[in-house]
């Protein structure tokens, strides 16, 4: 288990180095756009004992550079063409660097695809000392029975979400408490290993160091859900271009994440096929006239479709907006049905609060909230990311939820398995640390 996390630990050290330097870039590798934000940490980041800093943890950093470019070579939230993606990443990073006026060497990236799978893990150990120590926490984490998630999968997140001591559950920090049996629940998210390797390779080819990887569903939930939604239970539906991420939050922890490999690009593809027009044009028509609820007025609103095929009749067609909606709606419904199936599989209906927040660029389709409330449940709202310092106006839309969430993730990452101590018995036999530990315990 330990060697599995070596790379994650290395990335954490890289993140610490980036914090010391004060500049880190976040990179949202999406299917339709690649966004890069450059953050400057100004050292005012002080964690209080309650775990909540000033401005709910949004103080301490500032966005000094932001750039977006059209994504190339990314399909379904995974990298499909390496060199194309590398060029796109280079474009975004260069523009953001130029705006920031500073060179960035460390980057934290997120992606939405690669078929994420969630696992709930449980572990239980007996505490030897009367008081729970850090070693006990480490032992209970390593005692979690890891399911066989198959070859070619990599753990992306492994967050302890709950600790229980004897009969008391819901502890966030059991250290220093008195008890005998320490149990822990952990949420683990695995993705295809190739997706991570491809992304790491692309980032490396851009002369950057990867300081962390996050799931897009998770970070957009961090950005788009407000605090009480995260506390009481809510689902964040991040409708991107190539994939739709689903993440469920409870007690400020992500307890489930999934991705539906369908998104706005599929809607565009449907329009393109249905109206016999190129993709770029279909995208334009979708953003200008798209919708999911047709009214009588839409029958009369005609959209002129120009073209340059040379065929006069083909280039001067007109479609009504109702037709367009008729093409878009089944696909949006299909996506929402898939999301619904995913939420059902996660047992979302058992949560005390069933708030659903739609975010992502594709959530801007007019009338989507009405359609979503019919399919997903009554408590649906459209979410935009939190405002962070220095974020340009152009990057405040719902399409930037995962980029903004990654800023918060970079500033205050949630404790993951690899942030805790390694239990003593898992160390190699002749470890110097073990000797030091023995001295510290006995003297």
């Amino acid at each position, binding site marked *: 288990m330990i060697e599995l996390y070596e790379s994650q630990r290395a990335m954490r050290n890289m993140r610490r180095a980036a914090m010391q330097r004060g500049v880190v870039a976040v990179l949202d590798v999406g299917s339709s756009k690649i966004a890069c934000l450059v953050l400057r940490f100004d050292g005012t980041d002080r964690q209080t004992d309650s775990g909540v800093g000033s401005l709910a943890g949004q103080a301490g950093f500032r966005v000094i550079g932001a750039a977006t*470019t*059209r994504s*190339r070579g990314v399909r379904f939230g995974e990298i499909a063409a390496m060199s194309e993606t590398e*060029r*796109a990443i*280079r*474009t975004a*990073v*260069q523009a953001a*660097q*130029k705006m920031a*006026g*500073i*060179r960035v060497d460390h980057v934290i990236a997120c992606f939405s695809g690669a078929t994420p799978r969630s696992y709930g893990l449980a572990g239980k150990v007996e505490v030897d000392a009367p008081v729970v120590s850090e070693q006990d926490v480490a032992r209970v984490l390593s005692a979690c029975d890891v399911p066989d998630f198959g070859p070619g999968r990599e753990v992306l997140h492994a967050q302890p979400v709950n600790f229980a001591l004897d009969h008391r559950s819901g502890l966030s920090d059991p250290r220093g408490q008195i008890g005998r049996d320490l149990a822990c629940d952990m949420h683990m998210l695995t993705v295809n290993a190739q997706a991570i390797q491809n992304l790491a390779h692309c980032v490396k080819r*851009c*002369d950057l160091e990867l300081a962390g990887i996050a799931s897009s569903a998770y970070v957009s939930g961090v950005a788009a859900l407000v605090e009480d939604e995260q506390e009481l239970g809510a689902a964040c539906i991040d409708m991107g271009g190539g994939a739709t991420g689903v993440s469920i939050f409870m007690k400020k922890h992500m307890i489930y994440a999934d991705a539906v490999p369908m998104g706005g690009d599929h809607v565009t593809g449907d329009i393109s096929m249905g109206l016999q027009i*190129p993709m*770029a*044009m279909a995208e*334009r*028509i979708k953003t*200008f006239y798209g919708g999911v609820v047709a009214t009588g007025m839409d029958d009369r*609103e*005609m*959209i*002129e*479709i*120009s*073209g*340059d095929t040379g065929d006069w009749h083909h280039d001067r067609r*007109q479609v009504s907006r109702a037709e367009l909606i008729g093409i878009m709606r089944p696909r949006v419904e299909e996506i929402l049905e898939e999301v619904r199936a995913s939420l059902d599989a996660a047992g979302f209906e058992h949560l005390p609060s069933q708030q659903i927040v739609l975010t992502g660029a594709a959530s801007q389709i007019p009338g989507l909230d009405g359609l979503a409330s019919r399919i997903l449940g009554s408590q649906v709202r459209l979410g935009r990311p939190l405002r962070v310092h220095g974020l340009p106006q152009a990057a405040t839309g719902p399409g930037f939820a995962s980029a903004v969430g990654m800023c918060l993730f970079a500033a205050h990452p949630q404790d993951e398995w690899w942030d805790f101590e390694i239990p003593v018995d898992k160390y190699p036999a002749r470890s110097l640390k073990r000797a030091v530990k023995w001295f510290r315990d006995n003297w």
Partner: protein
Amino acid sequence: MQQVTQVFRPDPAPSRLKYRMERLMLTPLFRFALRVGLPFALGLGGASWYFSVEANRAAVMDALLGLQEQVQSRPEFAVSQMSIDGAGPGVTAAVREAMALQLPLSSFDLDLDALRARIGTLDAVKSVALRIRQGGVLQVDVVERVPVVLWRSGTGLEMLDDSGARVGPAASRTDRPDLPVIAGTGARDHVSEALALLTAAAPLEGRLRGLERIGERRWDVVLDRGQRILLPETDAVQALERAMAMDGAVDMLSRDIAAVDLRLAQRPTLRLSAMASQEYWRIKAMETGDQRQ
């Protein structure tokens, strides 16, 4: 209804090289090196390469000297006249000779300190101030030494001022009848005391011949008819004043005495001249009735 126009734009992407260059240019240390270090190194290297050639060095030095010459030879800096004030005609000639200047000159070539030192070596000059006046005139303000005594030494007659410094030689006593005469080795170092004595000896106006320094320690007042007043080493002025008082009271000095010895303050002594002592003895014998003569 709106016209939807199709836009085809190639995706902009920097090449790998351009991307790396831009990242390099955003590196603060590299930018500093490029902005400061590179021009500095280029300038220093170029200059040192240029000056490593002997001919270039000489050319630059020549050009610099030429420029200096050109500035210094401008008419604004030329000194064409000299004006010597505060000195008599003889001293003026001596100063002019001592300066030995070939006018006109550039004021950069004039070393006023050296000139001042050279003029200061002249005996007759007490102090001198030099400055270059407007209009290219070298103004020399000389303060002459005023002779107060004549000093007769082994080598001749010289004029001294009140500090004992030489003013110049005097050909003969009759050239300066207004000055008193002092004589003797070491008299030159005590001119101020001599002047005080001369002031005290003012009642002897017509009879005073001069002062003589005896054994480099005390003064003799020399009067006509070979008379002398021997003064002590210390408090000579008071002793002389006492002598003047005695003279006023009993008309002492007009009598036939050779010397008044005041060297011991408790016991002033008179020495009669040879004739007077003969006469004295004769009268004494007459008084005592001694018939031997």
